[in-house]
Structures are given as C-alpha cells and as structure tokens.
C-alpha cells in the first residue's frame, strides 16, 4: 500500500514525539515475562534505565515521562504532577484575593510580563529535570521542596499583580501604598518589625532569579536589553539581567519605595544606580561591608539597618514593632534549627531524602525570602520523611560512588546538573556553598543582640558569605568537605565573577597540594550561551572517564543534546 507524503510526515512526527527507539544491541526473541512484571512494579534497575532515550531531540521534552515502577510513578502522577497543578490553581486564587480577582490579575500579569508568561507555565518540567531518576523517599522529600518554592513564587507574583500600577490603569491602590520593594539580595528578615502591616516583596526574585531555573530562555532578553543601551557586557550577568528588566520596562510597579543593597558585589551597585534612575522614587541604599567579619564594620552595619527602618517609618508612617520582630525572628530560628538537623543527616548518613538541586534551591530561596508559613508546612512534611529514612536506614541514593561538595557561585541555568551527575556517574552532590550561607540564629533577648545577629545574618548572605567576603571564607571549603564527608569537589567557575576569578589559582594549588579530586565547571551564572549545559556535562564526563577511569551508570546520558530545552 502506498502511503501519501503527508501521512508519512505525520507518522514520522508521531514517531519523533512519542516512540522510544529500542537500543541496537538489544536481543530480539522471546520476552521474559517475569522481568517485564518486575520492571513494571519496581522500575528498571539503574543501569538499564536509558533515560537519555526518552528525550525528543534537543528540546528536553520527553517522548514519555519516565516509568519509575508502579508505586513511584503513581506517586509522581498523583502527588507531584496532579497535586502541584491543582495547588497552583488554588494558590492563584488564594493569594490573589479570591477566585475571580485572583484569576483576573494572574491573566493580566501573564499577558503583560514576559518573565511570567514565558517562564512559569513550564514549571512541571522544572520538577521533571530536578527529579529525574529519583525513587522512594528522596523523590518525595525533594518534591516537597519544589512545592514550597512554587507556592511562595505564586504568592509573590500575585501580590505584585494585585497592586501593580501598570495592570490597574496607573492607580495607586491601598495595597500599593503598603508594599515595600527591595532587591532580592536584601533579606526578608530586615522587615520583620513591619511584617503584619507592610508587605515586603523582593523585586527581582520572581522576574529574574527563579526564571533562570525554570525556563532559562527568558533571562537572555534582559541581558541583551542591558547591553543594547551601551552598558558593558563584562559585569556579572546577574546584575545585567536585573537592570535589563528595567530597560525593557518589564518590572511591575507595586510599591512606592525601594530598598537596595550592594550584595553580592560591586555589580549590584550598578543595578541600584540604574534602578534609582528608572524607578524614580524614594530609594534607600543599604550597603553591607565586603570584608564583613572585620570587627570595625559591625557597628556601621547595624546602623545601616536602623537607618533603613527609619526610612520605612518616615515613608509609610508605620513604627518599627519590636514584638513583631521577635515573633518572626523566632519563627525563622525554627527553620534554621531544622536546617541544621538536615545537614547533620546529610553529613553523617546515606539516608538524606533531599537531592542536590532541591537542597540548594530551597535553602537559598527560604533563607533569602524570610519566614513564611509555607516553609514550616514543607519542613513538617520533610521531617516525617527524614525520620522514616533514618529510622529504617533507607539509603536514598544507592548508586553513590562519590560524595560531592559543590563550591562557589552556581550556574542558574543548570541547577539540575547534580541530578544528571547522579544518574549518569553516581556523583551525589551532598551539599553546596549557597546552602551554607545565612547560618545564623537571631537572638531576641535584647534589642542589641537582635540587631547584632540581624546584621551578621545579612552579612552572611549568598555569595557575600563565601565568594566575595574575604579569602578565609571561600577557603572554608576544606572544613566543609570534612564535615560533610565529601571526597570530591565540583568547583564552579563563574567566568564573569571577578572575585572568584581572582582566587582561581589559589584553589588550583590547594587542590593539587591536598590531592583532592576537583572538577572545574565554567559557566556564566544565568547565561547559558557562554558555556552550554552540554559542555558542562562533557567536562564532568571527561574527568570521570580520563581521570577517575569510571564507567557511566547510564551511557545514554553521557552525550545528548538539550540546547533548546527549558
């Protein structure tokens, strides 16, 4: 029978989109029913999974999602995919002030802002990338972390949309008048004393930072926009993207004032200057010292925080409330205490139910964002899972060959590299540098102690804590390696980070002197065009083959294309 050209095209397309090719060397002949039944129920053994065969070209899409065994596939479908889609709709309504208002504001934001419409609807693929190959408790624990981040993201953008002048005909609503906009690098803890009366919302966290992880295409528009007005292309692309949003007029106008910071480094100062220009409203710059553990700068840093509070009091007519500060600082201490418990399990046992990417993103998100009810809810779920794995001695990543610590500033467009590295090479990324920042309890016994700890907390912010806060901090790698029982380092090499480039050679020498296996991973933070994800994988795989002389656990993951994927 002759097949028409069109029918052939359709058949080929369907094949491309849905059919997983059988490996060439697979034996043909009679089927082993027992094995098929076992694979159906338990999922294929790690070495037989061939996860790379599931991808469609370089899109990162799946011909079909992974079959993880009956129980885990059903868990993924019901408790991750369905649960999260359902809860996203509920969150949109809940945080938008009711079903109708919530959906209307969400739709307006979706139509207006690129970072919204292009990025956040792809969110389930963000889960997929981070949770690929995960089974049992680590699938569950990590997925809860993702759920927390999704919920908080929706809360933030719904708050922004509800009060955004651009979406409401230029009207300055009551909600607009009660919002404080701040840099994503100003911690939410600064605002605890105003928490129940004023709403603090980081300006770039949702339009920039989270987008890079969920859909790395969006941010490129903002980086290019920054350069299009003649700004230099060599500063950190994080800072470029943050002000590119303003050049493209893609920022929501949701607050009458702005609070900025020089955290993480000098690139952020440029961001503040440009934001001051474009926002054209009262702006308070709250700098934090670079060499922050110098005792001479402590008092200065505390005064800066107090000045910031004074600025808020004057602008909004709302006094700083000490009781309110204590209440939220104590709540936050509970999150920090649980983080320490988690680190303890991660460092000393193989029973830790959180994978590398979930650990890194959740920790940086909640500690920067500050105390919110969702973090406590998620921690309660994770605590249950962790108690279960520890009590029953469940090894969560059984194919671990090396315990890895990831150090320095991470590639935002490939935060899920550690999931790939485990599936392909058995590299278990136990902890990363950004997880270890903000390691500070907030005392509330006296005002002086509170202020002292709060300024320490902010000095220990991401990147400032280790990357650019003085060489003694970045060199604390050796202590953490020992503490977390790691035998290997993945050393991020942010090519546009002047601070880290300056200390590159010292690390080279130290790795050699200490005989440590370290893989240098170059990248340009949010910009995937400088070093692609494929190149990152190749660097790691080359090291594993040529230096470690190891065989991949899943050979289909060694070399595949994903340049056009989210």
């Amino acid at each position, binding site marked *: 029978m002759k097949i028409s050209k069109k029918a052939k095209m359709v058949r080929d397309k369907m094949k491309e989109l849905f059919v997983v090719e059988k490996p060439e060397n697979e034996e043909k002949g009679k089927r082993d029913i027992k094995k098929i039944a076992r694979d159906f129920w338990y999922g294929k053994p790690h070495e037989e999974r061939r996860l790379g065969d599931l991808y469609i070209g370089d899109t990162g899409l799946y011909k079909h999602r992974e079959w993880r065994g009956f129980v885990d596939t059903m868990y993924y479908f019901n408790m991750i995919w369905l649960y999260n889609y359902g809860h996203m709709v509920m969150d949109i309504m809940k945080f938008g002030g009711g079903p109708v208002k919530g959906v209307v504001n969400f739709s307006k934001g979706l139509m207006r802002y690129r970072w919204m419409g292009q990025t956040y609807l792809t969110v389930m693929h963000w889960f997929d990338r981070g949770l690929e190959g995960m089974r049992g408790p680590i699938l569950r624990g990590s997925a809860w972390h993702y759920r927390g981040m999704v919920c908080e993201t929706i809360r933030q953008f719904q708050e922004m949309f509800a009060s955004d002048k651009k979406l409401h005909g230029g009207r300055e609503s009551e909600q607009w008048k009660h919002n404080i906009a701040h840099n994503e690098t100003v911690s939410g803890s600064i605002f605890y004393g105003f928490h129940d009366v004023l709403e603090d919302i980081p300006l770039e966290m949702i339009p920039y930072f989270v987008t890079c992880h969920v859909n790395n295409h969006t941010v490129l528009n903002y980086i290019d926009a920054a350069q299009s007005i003649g700004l230099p292309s060599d500063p950190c692309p994080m800072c470029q993207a943050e002000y590119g949003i303003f050049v493209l007029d893609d920022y929501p106008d949701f607050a009458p004032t702005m609070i900025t910071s020089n955290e993480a480094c000098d690139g952020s100062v440029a961001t503040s200057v440009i934001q001051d220009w474009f926002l*054209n409203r009262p702006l308070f710059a709250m700098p934090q010292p670079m060499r922050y553990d110098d005792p001479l700068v402590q008092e200065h840093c505390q005064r800066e925080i107090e000045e910031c509070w004074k600025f808020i009091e004057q602008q909004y007519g709302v006094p700083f409330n000490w009781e309110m500060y204590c209440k939220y600082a104590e709540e936050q201490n509970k999150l920090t205490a649980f983080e320490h418990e988690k680190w303890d399990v991660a460092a000393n046992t193989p029973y830790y139910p959180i994978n590398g990417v979930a650990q890194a993103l959740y920790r940086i998100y909640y500690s920067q964002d500050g105390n919110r009810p969702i973090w406590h809810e998620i921690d309660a779920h994770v605590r249950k899972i962790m108690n279960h794995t520890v009590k029953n001695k469940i090894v969560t990543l059984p194919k671990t060959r090396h315990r890895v610590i990831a150090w320095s500033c991470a590639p935002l467009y490939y935060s899920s590299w550690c999931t790939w590295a485990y599936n392909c090479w058995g590299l278990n990324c136990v902890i990363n540098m950004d997880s270890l920042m903000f390691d500070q309890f907030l005392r509330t016994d006296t005002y002086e102690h509170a202020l002292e700890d709060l300024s320490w907390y902010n000095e220990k912010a991401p990147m400032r804590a280790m990357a650019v806060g003085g060489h003694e901090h970045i060199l604390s790698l050796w202590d953490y390696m020992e503490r977390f029982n790691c035998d290997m380092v993945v050393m991020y090499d942010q090519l546009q980070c002047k601070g880290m480039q300056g200390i590159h050679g010292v690390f080279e020498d130290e790795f050699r002197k200490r005989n440590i296996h370290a893989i240098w991973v170059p990248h340009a933070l949010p910009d995937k065009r400088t070093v692609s994800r494929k190149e990152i994988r190749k660097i790691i795989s080359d090291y594993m083959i040529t230096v470690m002389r190891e065989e991949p656990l899943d050979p289909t993951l060694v070399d595949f294309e994903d340049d056009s994927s989210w």
Partner: protein
Amino acid sequence: MKIILKIFGILAAVYAALFAVFYYDLDGKFIYYIFEPMMVRRYDNMKREDTLKTPYDMKEDVMKEE
C-alpha cells in the same frame, strides 16, 4: 446506583485521560510547541515605554534629619 456508576465511570475516564497527558508529556509538548512561541511573539511585538526617557535627578528630602 446507575448514576453512581456513571459518575464513577466519568471520573475514571478523566483520570485515565490525565494520566495519558502526564505520561506522554502532552502538557510539556503543548507549552513548548504552541503556547510559548505564541506568547513570545506577543511579548516581542508589545509596545513598551521608553524607560530611557525617565528623568534622572537628585531627590530631595528622602530622609529627614531628626
């Protein structure tokens, strides 16, 4: 009884359909091939304010001395 069975049947069919969407990544395929390109076209063609025209001058009295 018939009605209950009917409702149950409908729910089972919806559940199965959702599972097919999930398993064959139809949500991802829809967003990737249809929704995202459509939205990108929209954002690319959107009229935007020329933010470079924003005046840049010193603000007075941002913080009052006590």
